[in-house]
């Protein structure tokens, strides 16, 4: 999918071929948004928490250098080995080296969107290392040879019958099983064997604390803990923006994270890793991969405040109806659309346009990122830098001429109405993007101007 040349609109069109699935996807994510509202509304100080979280993250971005240095010092004192990776390639090489040093060729991995961003699994596969993703949703999409479509719910685009088929093919269950309980039990048995036998485990990081040099990993399934506590080597990969100043700030973030994500009051497990077990190894890889560039973009830097709850995806009218894969990037949805152009403006020029700018994303964001405003600002940057699609540029220019010439505007309007009335096939066809998944409106008999000219005399007499 990463190599796909289709843009968001084309990929969304693919997703929209199955109307029942789109409706299910839309309604299910909206249901999660409603659960988020219900839980958030039980906390009277919810808005004060969002404000505090936003201010803490603003402080982090403004003092990141010192927090990184402090975190490194404290983590090293704790016995954690700290690595620095300037880009995805360096991150992947460090992980490969650590696996090789452990004299193994396989690893278990819990959810880490950073490793998706870096293409770690593909890199390791090329070097003969087997990686098994242990989050249930991620394991399902891994077996299906697809990327996750949602950062919290990786296989939300799949139906249970398809998952039954995947498990039939790869895990040897009988055909035509779609009971979620049975399928989850199957995965539990399969992955328990993996946890018990893997010597190296990689996890993501939700928060890293400068004050103490520890890091926190949140899961509902317990897969990060099963992997890390049973392995000899624990590798934790994190973007440099995951730092928070002090441990007490977790009080704010852990109250917000899961309520915003799924409507739960907290994840089942919020694990604080401070020191390795006796005789075992713990590594943290601090990854830049474009984050310092984004930090320097005044209009876009606060996208780095993101805590990856996915509330902006669940609420987004475009995401819900276009599916995560239509964003062709590791982090989909509104937040992904403001992060991705920083990495590659040309490749992701379509994403800031994949939005209605309705602002719902900004309203639910637990750290108050002005997501829809950044989407709007990215559009200007992309057009100025010559990355706007040619058709859009021509269309905008035509619109500019039309709107700046009243005579031309009226003629075009008249012709348009006549065409829609007498030759609807001229607009009701595949060449007209507005006709996709929509019916064209019935044309009015006359324009407002025509009506006004006809009636002006009457009403005033």
């Amino acid at each position, binding site marked *: 999918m990463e190599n796909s040349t289709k843009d968001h609109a084309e990929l969304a069109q693919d997703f929209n071929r199955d109307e029942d699935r789109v409706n299910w996807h839309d309604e299910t994510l909206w249901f999660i948004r409603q659960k988020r509202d219900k839980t958030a509304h039980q906390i009277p100080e919810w808005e004060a928490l969002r404000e505090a979280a936003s201010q803490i993250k603003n402080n982090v971005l403004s003092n990141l250098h010192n927090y990184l240095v402090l975190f490194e010092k404290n983590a090293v004192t704790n016995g954690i080995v700290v690595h620095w990776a300037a880009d995805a390639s360096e991150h992947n090489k460090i992980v490969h080296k650590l696996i090789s040093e452990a004299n193994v060729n396989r690893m278990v991995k819990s959810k880490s969107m950073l490793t998706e961003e870096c293409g770690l699994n593909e890199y390791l596969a090329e070097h003969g290392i087997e990686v098994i993703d242990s989050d249930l*949703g991620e394991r399902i999409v891994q077996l299906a040879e697809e990327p996750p479509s949602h950062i919290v719910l990786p296989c939300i685009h799949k139906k249970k019958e398809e998952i039954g088929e995947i498990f039939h093919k790869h895990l040897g269950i009988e055909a035509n099983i779609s009971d979620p309980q049975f399928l989850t039990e199957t995965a539990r048995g399969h992955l328990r064997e993996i946890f018990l036998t893997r010597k190296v485990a990689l996890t993501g990081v939700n928060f890293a604390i400068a004050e103490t040099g520890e890091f926190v990993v949140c899961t509902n399934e317990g897969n990060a803990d099963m992997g890390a506590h049973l392995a000899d080597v624990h590798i934790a990969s994190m973007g440099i923006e995951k730092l928070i100043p002090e441990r007490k700030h977790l009080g704010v973030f852990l109250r917000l994270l899961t309520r915003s994500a799924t409507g739960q009051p907290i994840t089942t*497990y919020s694990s604080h890793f401070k020191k390795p077990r006796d005789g075992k190894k713990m590594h943290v890889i601090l990854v830049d991969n474009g984050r310092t560039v984004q*930090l320097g973009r005044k209009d876009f830097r606060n996208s780095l405040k993101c805590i990856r709850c996915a509330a902006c995806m669940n609420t987004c009218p475009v995401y819900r109806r276009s599916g995560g894969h239509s964003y062709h990037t590791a982090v989909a949805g509104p937040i992904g659309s403001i992060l991705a152009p920083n990495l590659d403006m040309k490749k992701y020029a379509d994403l800031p346009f994949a939005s209605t700018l309705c602002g719902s994303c900004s309203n639910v964001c637990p750290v108050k990122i002005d997501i829809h405003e950044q989407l709007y600002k990215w559009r200007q940057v992309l057009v100025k830098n010559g990355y706007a699609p040619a058709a859009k540029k021509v269309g905008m220019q035509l619109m500019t001429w039309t709107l700046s010439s009243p005579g031309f505007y009226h003629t075009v309007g008249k012709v348009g109405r006549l065409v829609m009335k007498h030759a609807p096939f001229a607009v009701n066809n595949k060449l007209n993007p507005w006709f996709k998944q929509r019916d064209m409106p019935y044309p009015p008999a006359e324009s407002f101007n025509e009506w006004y000219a006809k009636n002006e005399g009457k009403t005033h007499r």
Partner: protein
Amino acid sequence: MNSREKILSAVIANQPELVPLPELSSFERNASGCSDKFVAMLKSVGGFFYYVSSYDEIINILLSVNGENKKIISTVTELTAYYSEEFLNNPQISNIHDIDVAVLKGRFGVAENGAIWLTDQEMRQRALPFICQHLAVILNADSIIPTMHEAYELISKVTYDFATFIAGPSKTADIEQSLVIGAHGPRSMTVFVMINDQ
């Protein structure tokens, strides 16, 4: 210039002007009604709950729920039937992979979300509360606090190498958003709140 220096110099060149941290003291709450709220939240996250007044009572409940012939392991010295220093000192995976029930003490519970704080001192083996088929946690009635803010006040006074909040059994809803209890970790979590610690 190595990557560390490269990243740090890029950060210092690009980070905005320093803005202060917010004051968090306004979030602290009073503790009235905490226990009831805790019980309600624990149940909502899928946990079971018993008020008990003795360790014998805990053993009776464990036996009646799990039946005989189960591998029950405890790190709580008072539960002599299930406590074995030798067992807990053996970190081999083969030693712990088939535990049916693990019984641990929790430091405190959080009313707003039903989570219990456990450190590696209570766990002995970090994998223990995750690898067992069923988890039981003993909590003192007076150790239930209102919110995560008070939790981190308490946490600042203890030291640990590893610690975790656990809120209910392991769960997933990755398949069509259907909630399934027992993903990779325990299939159940039972909390015993000790009213009169012996």
